[in-house]
C-alpha cells in the first residue's frame, strides 16, 4: 500500500483493485490534479507516438446505487478492442456489489470519492484519472 498523503490514500492491495480514496469532495478534486495520486495503472502510459487512440470508459456510480455489470459489458462489447479499454468505476461512498463487474472487466480501477459527492464531481474526478485519449462516460445504473 502506498501512502500518498495525509488526506488521500492509494491502495493496491487489498482490495484487489487500484483505488483512490479522499476525505472530502473538494479535497478529492484538489488531489486528483496532483500527479502523485495517479494509480500505477494509469501512469503506465505509452511513450512516443501511438498508432491508435487509447480509450477509457468511466462508469459513474452515485451513492447507494448498484452498478449494472450488464450495462458496462454491453457498452464494452460494442468496442473493437474492448480488452484494451481502461475501465474506471467512480463511486460516491463505499460501493457494494461490484464483484460481478470485477468478474467481467479485466482491469477495473475503482475511484472512491466521499459519500455525498455529486455525479458531476465524480465525472470530473474520474476524468482527471482517465488516461485515455477518448473517454466515454457512462452512468453505472440503468436509466
Amino acid at each position, binding site marked *: 500500500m502506498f501512502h500518498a498523503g495525509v488526506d488521500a490514500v492509494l491502495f493496491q492491495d487489498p482490495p484487489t483493485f487500484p483505488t483512490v480514496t479522499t476525505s472530502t469532495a473538494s479535497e478529492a478534486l484538489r488531489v486528483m490534479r496532483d500527479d502523485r495520486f495517479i494509480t500505477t495503472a494509469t501512469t503506465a502510459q505509452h511513450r512516443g507516438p*501511438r498508432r491508435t487512440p487509447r480509450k477509457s470508459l468511466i462508469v459513474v456510480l452515485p451513492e447507494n446505487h448498484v452498478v449494472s455489470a450488464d450495462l458496462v459489458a454491453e457498452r464494452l462489447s460494442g468496442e473493437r478492442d474492448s480488452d484494451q479499454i481502461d475501465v474506471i468505476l467512480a463511486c460516491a461512498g463505499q460501493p457494494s456489489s461490484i464483484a460481478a463487474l470485477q468478474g467481467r472487466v479485466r482491469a477495473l480501477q475503482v475511484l472512491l470519492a466521499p459519500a455525498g459527492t455529486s455525479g458531476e464531481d465524480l*465525472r470530473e474526478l474520474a476524468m482527471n484519472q482517465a488516461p485515455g485519449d477518448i473517454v466515454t462516460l457512462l452512468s453505472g445504473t440503468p*436509466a
Partner: protein
Amino acid sequence: MKTGDAQHSQSGSARETASHGLLLSVIVSTLNSRGTLPQVLAAIRGSDLPRKSYEIIVVDDASIDGSAAIAARYADTVVKLTGHSAGPAYARNRGVELARGDVIAFVDGDVVIRPDTLPRLLAILLERPDIDAVSASRNESAGAPNFVSQYWNLLLSFGEQRHSGRCAQFAPGCGVVRRAAFLSAGMYDEWRFDTASMESVELGERLLGAGHGVILSSELTVTHLKQWDFRSVCREVWHRSRVLARSLGYLRMSAAAPGEVVFTLCRTLIPAVAILGTLLLATAFVPAPHPSAKFGVALAALLLTNLPVHIFYTNTRGFWFATLSAPLHVFVQIVAAIALCTGWVLRDVFGDVSPDATTQAYSEVGLEIWPPVPRRL
C-alpha cells in the same frame, strides 16, 4: 397556422422522431473554454429533446486550462487531443468520426443555445428533405458586455441577417448537418484551416456545390459568449480576409456566402475608393482643395457607403453607440482591405495555404498515429 404554432409543431415533430432512438450527435469543439464551457454544455443538456435521443461529444483541442475535466461533467464522450491545437475543423472531424447519430450538430465552445434551438433545427431537416444543413444566426446581444464585443457581434449579426435564407453560409456557432451529406462533401477541410477562420463558410460552399441544400435561419439565434478586444478583432479580420483572398477566392465566396463579415467590411469600401479616386482625378482639372476638405470628403464617402451598417447600429444600440463605432469600423475596414491585398499577393507568390513540411511528409507516407495527421480533402 400561426408562426408560433408552426414552430411548436415543428419542434414537437422533432421530439417525437427523436424519442425513437439516437438521432443527433452534438459535437462541441473547445480550446481553453473553461470559463464558458459549463454554460454551453448545460444549455445543450437543457435542450427540449429526450436525453436518449442525442449524445454530446466534446473534442478538447489541446487545451491547457482543464477544459476536458469540465466537459466530463456534462458530456457522453470527451476526446482529448494532445500536442498543439489543430483548429476547430480538425477537432470537429475527430468528433464526427465517433458520432453515432444520423444528424450532426456543431456547437462552439462559447455558444449558448436555447432549449428549442436543436429541436427546431432538427425539425427543418425532418420536414425539408431538400435541405441538408441548417444553422442558427447570431443573436444581436453578445454575451460579453464590453464595447468591442458588442460592435463585433452586431457586425457579424448584420451580415447574417441581411443574407439569411438560402446561401452557402454555414454559421460556425451552431448548425446541424445530415451525416451522409457531411461525409459525402468530404467533412471539414482540416488541411487548410488549422485555426478558427473560414472553415464553416468553406464547408457550406462545398456542400452547396455538391448539390446539398444549405440555409441560415434568421429566426433561430444563439448567443456568443466570447469576449473580444480591439486587438483580437483586428487579428480575426486580418486572418479571415487573408484566408479568403489566398485560399477561397473573393468573387466565388462573395456569391456563395454574401453574409460573411469580410464582405460586409469590404463591399462598402469599393464605392468609397471610387469616390476618392474620382476626386483625386478631378484635382488635375480644378484647383486642389484644402487638405481638411479632402479629409472631410473621404470621411463623408466612408460614412455614406457604410450607412446601412450605421443605421443598423443606431436601431439596435442607439445613436451614440453608432457614432462611437464609426471610427472603429473604418479602421477595421482598412485592416480587412490590407489583409485581402496581402492574401492575394501570398496566393500569387506562395500558392494556397498548406500545413508545415513535417505534416505534409507524414501525410505523404500515410503514417498512422494518434492524433492523426490532418487529412487532405
